[in-house]
């Protein structure tokens, strides 16, 4: 009789485990698979990718790119999205993660392939430098400010807001003052 109770107890226990889920992980595994989960304690940053300026200069855009597929009607390629900030993450790391996670095309020139020693973003969503006139290309802001150096050299901190914006006028049309002040 006692044995039966023991067995039934065991059965109940196992069923409880089954109901609760059998997704058992080591600490390392848990950390690895939850690295991008946002909780109240994680440091995060925000990123968005927009090409509004092309809408205003549509006639300058290479004809093969004149399509909603490349230039969304609202100019938004990626709406503001929150990502976990891993230690040492640069603006480039977050951009790369966001385009990978959202399957957006992106092409860059590696840090050692140009004399600036920083990664250079050539194209996003098939929109390249010079795709929309001789002064066009991708540039970025962090918290509303245009840093004048490469995106793989900008290390982020908690709460930073990155905006990738396409310019058709060397940054002036997106409010880059340091580029505009001399020539305006």
């Amino acid at each position, binding site marked *: 009789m006692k044995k039966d109770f023991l067995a039934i107890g065991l059965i109940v226990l*196992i069923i409880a485990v089954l109901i609760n889920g059998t997704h058992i992980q080591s600490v390392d595994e848990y950390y690895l698979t939850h690295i991008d989960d946002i909780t109240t304690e994680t440091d995060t940053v925000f990123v968005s990718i927009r090409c509004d300026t092309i809408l205003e200069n549509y006639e300058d855009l*290479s004809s093969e790119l004149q399509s909603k597929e490349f230039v969304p009607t609202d100019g938004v390629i990626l709406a503001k999205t929150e990502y976990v900030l891993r230690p040492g993450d640069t603006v480039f790391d977050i951009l790369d993660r966001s385009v990978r996670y959202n399957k957006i095309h992106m092409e860059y020139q590696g840090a*050692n392939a140009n004399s600036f020693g920083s990664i250079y973003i050539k194209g996003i969503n098939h929109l390249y430098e010079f795709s929309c006139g001789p002064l066009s290309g991708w540039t970025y802001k962090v918290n509303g400010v245009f840093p*004048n*150096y490469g995106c793989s050299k900008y290390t982020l901190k908690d709460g930073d807001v990155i905006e990738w914006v396409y310019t058709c006028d060397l940054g002036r049309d997106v409010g880059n003052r340091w580029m505009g002040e001399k020539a305006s």
Partner: protein
Amino acid sequence: MKKTKQILCGLISIILLFTIIMQAVCAQPVKHLYSEQEILKVAEDIINWKKSDNKSSVNGYLLNDAFLELAGTTAGDWFPIGLGRFAYQDDEEGYLAVIKEAVQKRYGQAEKLSAAKATEWHRISLSVLAMGGDPTHCGTYKDGNSINLIADGTYNRGKTAPLGKQGINGWIWGLIALDSMRYEIPKGSFYSRDDIITEIIKRQLSDGGFALSGKVSDPDVTAMAIQALSPYYNAEKSYTYNQKSDNKQMQKSVRNIIDEALVCLSKMQLADGDFASWGTQNAESTAQVIVAICSLGIDVQQDNRFIKNGNTLLDGIMKYRMKDGGFIHSLAYQADNPTSLPNKSNSMASEQVLYTMAAVWRQQNGMRILYDFRAEQSTALRKRISNLKSKISSITNKTSKSDIEKLLKDYYSLSESERNYVFNYVKLSDVAKGLEINILQLANKTAVIPDKGEEDGYLPVYFILSDRIAVSSLPKPLTTKQYVEVVKLLTKLEQSENFDEKETYRQILLNAKNDILAIQNEIDSINAQVKNKLYPFDKISLKDKAVVDDIVNRYKKLSEYDGQKIERYEDVLKTKTKVDNYLRAVIITVVLILVVSILLILVALHIRKRRTKKRHEMEQLEKLYEDE
């Protein structure tokens, strides 16, 4: 006899004194004049800095294999230009072998070198020339035809995209590339030289200079425009065009335009002798101005227009020289900009100063200007030009009209492509115009007396013992790290004189090249697979296990060096862990359900057994009662 000598000596000293006084009156006192030795030292120090930056040794190549991997990029092509224009011995063959492969590979894409940037063709053409190669035969198409970077990048660029699609830089560098060997434009081409010149000059701004955009001139762009236009400074031709900035109709010669641009640059020069662009005083703007000044044959250290407070352009640029021999972009430290460390040399400033030093050194030695890659002038031609120049400089208001006409004939008997080396022609032209001489008519009547240049000798190439040892010591298995070495060896082998085992070596090297290309394809394919299959992460399920395991297995087969070329491998590990965890969960579930089932059966059996036993006992008990 002795007396004549004394008189002569006295006369010479008087003349010397007079010239010195004249110079002092004409030129501002200069704080320091840089000798050829000093210029060479600056260049050598840059080269040694870059070698150490490259992790090469002082006696090794600057263009080592790690550097050559960058051939065909902005970081890989300007150092070769600087080295080549100094005739500094480095790995020219290696560079040419790798750039040819790189160009061929990129020509496999629809946009070839670039969809928008014609300057890709220009930069590569110039570096190929600097390394002793021929940009009109830079690799081949699949059908065996030669790739012609000059045609595709300059006069026929318009057949694919406008030369100026990227802006004024496309026109400027297109003209520099076109004139690098004074290439002839075949009939039926898209652009003529005048088309390109007009596109540049109509972008002149009202202050005389040029800029990428806007109405305020930028020193770099102004200087580059002068570099491109400099071969036409002496031409008497006048262009009629509409200026872009204000749509005014203009009629100007290239000389008018360059003179205005020089005034603009002179005004921009700062007290230290340097320049500022985009609001920052920097080395590169000064470098571009020096190259521009040298391209016109203006003495870079003595011309009043470019001396400020006794500081020359060279003083201006030496400000940016670091203790380690390299150069820095800017001395102004911006706290938020990690690239502006005020004491760390950087490649862009250093490579630009290196070729600028080559431009100065060439001026000091009366050689061709920086972007004129033709063979140096023969001694006879040099003499013709220097005689003409000294005759022009001694023109006074007493020189007779017939003498002026004679000098003009001397000038127009030079072949057109050499006339820009008569740097003081403008004086002759002005005097002739004052005397109402019809220069064009005289030019047309004058026959060109061509110069018999010195012919290049043929130098045989041998696949020497060290090359053969290099082939046999290629590691097994190969990695992409050996790509540059294999391509270099293969190119050298193909150019070398015949020897017995040439075919054997060719097969070994061809196989090695194919193996490496296969590894590179595998790397590209894994990278594409990662990008396409692993995202978004939250959609990953057990169904993806085969794909993830396949990626991991293929990654493990790569060497350590090649494995580093897999991007975001941490994401692969993350996905693999997730999938494996799923699988483990499924296994655990199945096992637990099995255990529960077995336990249930056991309990049931046990209960049944006990019941049977009990009934048996009862039956026996009943039997006992009945018996009683």
